[in-house]
C-alpha cells in the first residue's frame, strides 16, 4: 500500500515524541553507565560519566537528561556504590540544569569552542562543592576515587591543612574541572554527529 492509495501519513506528533523521550531516559542512564567500560578500554584518566546527561538535555530537553542522569545514580547506588550514593543523583540533575542553561544560551556548540570550554569549566568548578558534600556524607570525606593522582592531591591537601573536607574538595577540583569540560565537549560532539531526525528539542540557533 502507498500514500497514493489513500493511506494518510502523519508526521510524528507530541504524543510520539513523549514515548521516544520516555524510551530515551533508560538509554541515557545506560550510556552513562557503560562509559566506565569505554574509559577503561581506552585508558582515559577521567570518569566522563555525566556526558550522557548533557547529551540527553541537548537531544531531548531538560527533564529527559535530568531523569536519565538521576536514574543512572539510582542504578549505581543499587549495584556498585550502595545506598548513600543515590544522593549523587542530584549532581546529575545539577549537570542537566546547568547544561540546559548553557545550551539555551547557545554556549553548547562545537562551533564556539571558547564558550563551550568556559561552560565546561564553570560546570566543573560549581560541581566540586556538590561532590564534596556527597563525599563527606556518603564516604566520610575519604579519597573515594581509585586514582593515584586524586589520592596524591588529597594527601597533599590533608598534609598542608589537616582538614579532610578541604582535602576532599581539592581532589574534586583536580579532576572535576577537566572531567566535566571534556564530558560537555563530548556531549556536544556526539549530538552534532546525530542525524537531525533524532533531535527532539527545538534548535537554539
Amino acid at each position, binding site marked *: 500500500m502507498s500514500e497514493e492509495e489513500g493511506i494518510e501519513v502523519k508526521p510524528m506528533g507530541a504524543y510520539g515524541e513523549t*514515548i521516544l523521550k520516555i524510551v530515551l531516559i533508560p538509554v541515557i542512564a545506560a550510556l552513562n553507565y557503560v*562509559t566506565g567500560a569505554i574509559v577503561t578500554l581506552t585508558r582515559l584518566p577521567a570518569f566522563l560519566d555525566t556526558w550522557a546527561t548533557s547529551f540527553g538535555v541537548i537531544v531531548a530537553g531538560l527533564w529527559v537528561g535530568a531523569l536519565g542522569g538521576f536514574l543512572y545514580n539510582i542504578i549505581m547506588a543499587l549495584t556498585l556504590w550502595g545506598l548513600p550514593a543515590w544522593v549523587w543523583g542530584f549532581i546529575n540533575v545539577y549537570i542537566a540544569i546547568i547544561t540546559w542553561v548553557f545550551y539555551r544560551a547557545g554556549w553548547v556548540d562545537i562551533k564556539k569552542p571558547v564558550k563551550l570550554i568556559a561552560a565546561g569549566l564553570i560546570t566543573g568548578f560549581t560541581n566540586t562543592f556538590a561532590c564534596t558534600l556527597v563525599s563527606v556524607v556518603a564516604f566520610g570525606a575519604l579519597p573515594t576515587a581509585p586514582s593515584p593522582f586524586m589520592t596524591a592531591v588529597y594527601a597533599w591537601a590533608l598534609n598542608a591543612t589537616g582538614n579532610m573536607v578541604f582535602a576532599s574538595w581539592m581532589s574534586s577540583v583536580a579532576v572535576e574541572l577537566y572531567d566535566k569540560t571534556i564530558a560537555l565537549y563530548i556531549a556536544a560532539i556526539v549530538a552534532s554527529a546525530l542525524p537531525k531526525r533524532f533531535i527532539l528539542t527545538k534548535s537554539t540557533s
Partner: protein
Amino acid sequence: MSNLIQLGYEEKDSWVHKLDPRTKFILFIWASIFNYIFYDIYISLAFLISLIVLTIVGKVAKRILKIISIVLIPFYVLSTLVIALPIGFPYNETPLFSFTVFGFDVTFYLEGAAYVAIWTLRLAITMTSALLFFLTSNPARITTILLKLRIPYKYIYALLSVFQLIPIMQRRIQVIYQAQVSRGLNVNVGLFKRLKNFLAILIPLTLGSMSDLQLRAIALESRGFSAPVKKTFIVRSDLTKSDYVVLSVMVALSALFIYWIITVGLMVFMKGIPYIRPAG
C-alpha cells in the same frame, strides 16, 4: 569498573529468592541506616557477617563478594595509606605499629585505621544489602509491586529497562572496539589520541542506541505501553511467613539499637577510640 559487574537477576531456588522484594529492600535501607548511625566496628562486622550468610543462602555470595572486593579493596588500601599514616589526619594519637622505609620511621595510627575500617565496613554493608536485593529479586515481581504502589508504568519501565540495556551496550562496545582495533585503533597513545579513540567507540554506540529508540518505542506501543487501561499482572507478589519473620527480626533489632543509642551512645562495644565526624 562498571564493566566488571555482571548485572541482573538469576532465577535460583533459595529461601532469599522466595522473599518478597519489599522485605529485601527494607532490609537494604534498614541495614544501611543503622550502620551509618553507629560508629562501631563490632556492630558493623556483625551486620556484614549476617548479610554474607544471607548471600550464601541466596547463592549469590560469589558474585557479591567479587564486586565488593573489586570496589572496596582499592578504597580501603588507599584510604588507610593516607589516613592511618602521619600525613595529616588530625585525630591520629595512638601508634599501632611502626616500620622503616628508606631510612624513615613510618607509624600507623589506631584512630586513622579505625576510621577507615568503619567507613569501609559501612560501604560494604550498604553494597552487600543492595546487591542482595537486586540480584535475588525477580524484575517481574518488582514491577508488580511498583504498579501496586501506583507508580506510573513509564517510570517503572525506565528503571527496569536500564538493566536490559546495559548488557546489550556492553556487548556492543566489545564489537565496536574489535572493529576499531582491526582498523588500527591503538590504546598505547597520547592523551589527545586516547580521547579520539574514546569518541571512535562512543559515537557508533550512541548512534546505534538512538536508531534502536524508534524500534523500541514502536514495539512498546504495539503491546499497549501507553494504553489508558488498568494493567494486569502476570506475576503476583505477596508477603509470606518468611517475610514476616525477617521483618519482625528487623523491628526487634531496631528496638534494641534505639535502646543502645539512648543508653550507651553510638559506640556500643568499641572503646578507647574517639568518635570522629568527617567534617570535624
